[in-house]
């Protein structure tokens, strides 16, 4: 105990060299811990959000983009696809498909995506209602928990969406307000960040975009018949009554067939050769694209991994340099303290005590450097959580300590030990008579 205290007193006796060693060590440890924590949490979030989806079907383009957009709501859509081309997959009697969930995207509310879909979608994420109801009629929405928390919208409130993922004022669809009807419980998945509504709501908003804006009036939207679109009408008043939408609930089949969705999420009954063939067939013989989320996400991780690896390598270099700085500062202080160590021997200390003293000093720097580094890592996570939220649309848990950080402690102490061994051996070999002559 007394040796531990003395080792600390010795360290504090040289505050500048202590600060240098600690800072370097904390920097190395902090960077490594940050990389590990971020990597872990990102991987975890991405995997949670796979939600058992085996295949995503959408417009041709980058399969990674299709997955990022369709499953994680991060990237822009690859484009839309005609509903009639995927209707076969949505047939409940399809031999291979257990569940097919259509998504219509395009609009946002203050940065949160509005997703036109079916009741199957929240089921994928096991989302439950916290209050209110599921959306039923067009322009009714159920909010994900984060959306509700950030926007402070309550059931009964209305809002106006904007086009695209940005929330600037120019792109607002101010002719079609949405009405909040329910709020979901937190699921820890991307579902928390979404505004859920029926596909009809999205179509309704966008069909009007082609029309001249005419607020506060009832008008008829004529859709171009040459495009196979049916005529339909609805009102757009600020105070939406449910009765206004009644006719929208009964969309006739030809109209439905002409409509577009963005992606179709598919769960297979079982993955086998036939499902693989189906994916290949879609990619080769249709205007559609089918991508496997797990494969694309692995590809993304291996791409990101290069960056992570580079930073991690840098962090290990810093850790090595900080180990070197511990070594040098112990070695130098040992030269100055030779007489002091010889004196301790004269007073009755054994060579082993002196060896332990120096080892303890190395371990102490490593230990406190580790504490500072891990603390710094989690503080950085804490203070950058808003930025990370913007970047990934996920809340990171700043105070989630992972098992790897325990291994990191072992690594840190090993560096401290290794740096202290040579000075400690020198202390062990202190020749009293020569030193104090």
């Amino acid at each position: 105990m007394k040796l531990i205290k003395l080792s600390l007193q010795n360290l504090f006796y040289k505050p500048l060299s202590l600060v240098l060693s600690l800072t370097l060590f904390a920097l190395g440890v902090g960077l490594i811990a940050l990389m590990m924590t971020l990597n872990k949490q990102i991987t975890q979030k991405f995997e949670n959000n796979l939600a058992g989806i085996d295949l995503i079907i959408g417009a041709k383009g980058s399969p990674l983009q299709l997955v990022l957009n369709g499953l994680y709501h991060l990237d822009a859509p690859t484009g839309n696809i005609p509903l009639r081309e995927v209707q076969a997959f949505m047939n409940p009697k399809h031999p291979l498909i257990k569940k097919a969930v259509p998504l219509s995207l395009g609009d946002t509310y203050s940065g949160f995506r509005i997703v036109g879909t079916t009741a199957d979608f929240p089921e994928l994420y096991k989302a439950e209602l916290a209050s209110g109801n599921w959306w039923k009629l067009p322009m009714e929405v159920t909010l994900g928990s984060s959306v509700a928390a950030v926007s402070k919208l309550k059931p009964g409130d209305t809002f106006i969406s904007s086009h695209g993922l940005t929330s600037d004022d120019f792109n607002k669809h101010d002719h079609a307000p949405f009405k909040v009807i329910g709020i979901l419980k937190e699921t820890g998945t991307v579902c928390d960040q979404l505004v859920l509504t029926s596909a009809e709501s999205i179509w309704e908003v966008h069909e009007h975009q082609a029309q001249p804006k005419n607020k506060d009036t009832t008008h008829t939207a004529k859709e171009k018949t040459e495009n196979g679109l049916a005529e339909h009408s609805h009102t757009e008043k600020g105070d939406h009554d449910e009765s206004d939408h009644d006719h929208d609930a009964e969309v006739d089949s030809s109209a439905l067939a002409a409509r577009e969705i963005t992606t179709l999420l598919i769960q297979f009954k079982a993955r086998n050769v036939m499902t693989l063939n189906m994916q290949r067939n879609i990619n080769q013989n249709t205007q559609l694209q089918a991508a496997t989320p797990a494969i694309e996400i692995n590809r993304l991780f291996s791409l990101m991994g290069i960056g992570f690896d580079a930073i991690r390598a840098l962090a290990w270099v810093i850790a090595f340099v900080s180990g070197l700085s511990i070594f040098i500062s112990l070695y130098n202080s040992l030269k100055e303290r030779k007489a002091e160590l010889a004196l301790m021997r004269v007073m009755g200390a054994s060579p082993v005590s002196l060896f332990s003293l120096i080892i303890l000093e190395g371990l102490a720097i490593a230990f406190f450097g580790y504490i500072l580094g891990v603390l710094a890592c989690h503080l950085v996570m804490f203070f950058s959580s808003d930025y990370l939220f913007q970047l990934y649309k996920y809340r990171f848990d700043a105070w989630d300590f992972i098992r790897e950080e325990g291994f990191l402690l072992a690594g840190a102490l090993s560096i401290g030990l290794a740096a202290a061994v040579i000075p400690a051996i020198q202390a062990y070999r202190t020749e009293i008579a020569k030193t104090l002559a």
Partner: protein
Amino acid sequence: MLSSTNISFQYPNAGFQFPDVSVADKGHCLVLGKSGTGKTTFLHLLAGLLTPKTGEISIDGQVLRRLSASQLDQYRGKKIGIVFQKSYFIQAVSVIENLAWSQYLAGYPIDRDRIITLLKRLGVDHHAHHRPSGLSIGEQQRVSIARALINKPSVILADEPTSALDDENAEEVIHLLEEQASLENAALIIVTHDARIKSHFDQQILLGA
């Protein structure tokens, strides 16, 4: 009580043969000699810091040669107080902690009353909580003497304790060493080339004669 018989020591390129010494409890002995006559070597041999090539040293009837390395470390801490030419301290801790370490390393319980009493007797108790580096050379030497005395040793060995001091301080340090060694019933052996302190001692040994 310290006695040595027939000690010799061999350096790679020089050898020394030392005269026999015997100093009783409360006895004082001055070891004189010019530079290069092996004064410090003699003191280190007596303190068990070096092992003689031939001969025997015994303190309170214990022959040092018969002790193992770790036993010798402990025995030295308990039975021998050493005052060096220069004052050495554990720099990072206060004066009082330095003395406490001396007790602790010798295997004794820490006795703060004893430390303060000793510092008072040597007139440096006001520095008890200062770091040694803040003290003057004379004050540091007094603390060194206090540390040599702290464990009530049988023998106090002093290596040129006055060489760095002016006449007045040298006189005082010698006086203190004699007085305190007597108070603690310890034998005192001073190795020096300092002619100023010759007159104090009846028992004198001349090296290199």
